[in-house]
């Protein structure tokens, strides 16, 4: 797998803007853990095993607030619930007949917004049998880069000013935004994107913790069913 050309192409794809976008946020997360009293080994373990930034922040904030194991599990489950539809969506695209279940479950660890967007951007140009290795190269590099950046953020947080750290946090949502608008091609996608943003804002004060999931499911369902005819054409 690791010597295949598809794997190497996936790694090359990840190097550059995708790695910069995610890496900068992970750097800030490392700096945040340092200022919050965690150790460098904790920062390493958190990104190594979780690799989903919003949930990692929730974990750190919940523990600082005195939360229990169950509090943290449920809070992270809720925040990272977005990974569920993304995984259901991506796995059928990248697997082939030869992809074992074990490999699918292992590769799922590399699914994040950045790897999901970038894989969907190129998958139609790849042969079906190459897609899995390509994704492992792409997602695996992003994951490894994130682990390194978290540790670097922890180690060098004292050398970076607070204002630069705030600007660095802004890189990742802007990268997500640009990748999202690059999907403004089909009517159902445009509707899902616009409604998702609007509903998230409207629902924020009503269902604070659930607003993102409710907004996303409602927006995606409306976008899909309003333009169902477009799907069948």
């Amino acid at each position, binding site marked *: 797998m690791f010597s295949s050309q598809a794997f190497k192409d996936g790694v090359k794809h990840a190097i550059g803007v995708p790695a910069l976008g995610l890496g900068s946020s992970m750097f800030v997360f490392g700096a945040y853990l340092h200022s919050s*009293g965690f150790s460098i080994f*904790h920062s390493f*373990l*958190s990104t190594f*095993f*979780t690799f989903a930034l919003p*949930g990692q*922040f*929730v*974990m750190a*904030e919940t523990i600082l607030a005195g*939360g229990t*194991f169950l509090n*943290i*599990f*449920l*809070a992270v*489950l809720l925040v*990272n*619930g*977005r*990974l569920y*539809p993304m*995984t259901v969506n991506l*796995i*059928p695209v990248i697997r082939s007949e030869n992809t074992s279940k074990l490999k699918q*479950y292992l590769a799922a*660890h590399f*699914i994040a*917004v950045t790897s999901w967007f970038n894989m969907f951007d190129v998958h139609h140009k790849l042969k079906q049998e190459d897609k899995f290795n390509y994704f492992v190269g792409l997602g695996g590099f992003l994951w490894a880069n994130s682990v390194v950046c978290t540790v670097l953020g922890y180690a060098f947080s004292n050398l970076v000013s607070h*204002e*630069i*750290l*705030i600007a660095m*946090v*802004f890189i990742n949502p*802007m*990268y*997500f*935004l*640009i990748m999202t*608008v*690059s*999907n403004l091609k089909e009517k*159902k*996608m445009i509707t*899902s*994107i616009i409604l*998702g*943003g609007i509903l*998230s804002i409207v629902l*924020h004060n009503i269902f604070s913790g659930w*607003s*993102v999931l409710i*907004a*996303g499911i409602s*927006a*995606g*369902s409306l*976008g899909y069913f309003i333009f169902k005819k477009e799907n069948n054409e």
Partner: protein
Amino acid sequence: MSNQLIYLSIIAASLGTYFCRAFGVFSAKKLSVDSPIFLWIKCVSIGVISAVIARIVLFPAGLLSESTSLNRILCTLIALTIYFSFKKNVLLAVLSSAFCFGILNHFF
């Protein structure tokens, strides 16, 4: 904070996150890329991501909450303007926006 408590928290966060991914793999077992459900899930995924972005820009937590809403909205518009004005250059749009955000936060 005890060391043991932190390790338990990391385990809890990792399990909570991996559950979403593993359950996704399990649910996708018999799903075909040509099925209507697949298209619906793609719409839901992009809707959720759009909702996440709106929430980060307008109701951020952590470090971003130290900046003003006006700065965040302005820099979001800058990112979009540059992206569509410069042949959809992702790197230029993202970095210009973050650079402007840093400058605006310094002065305002």
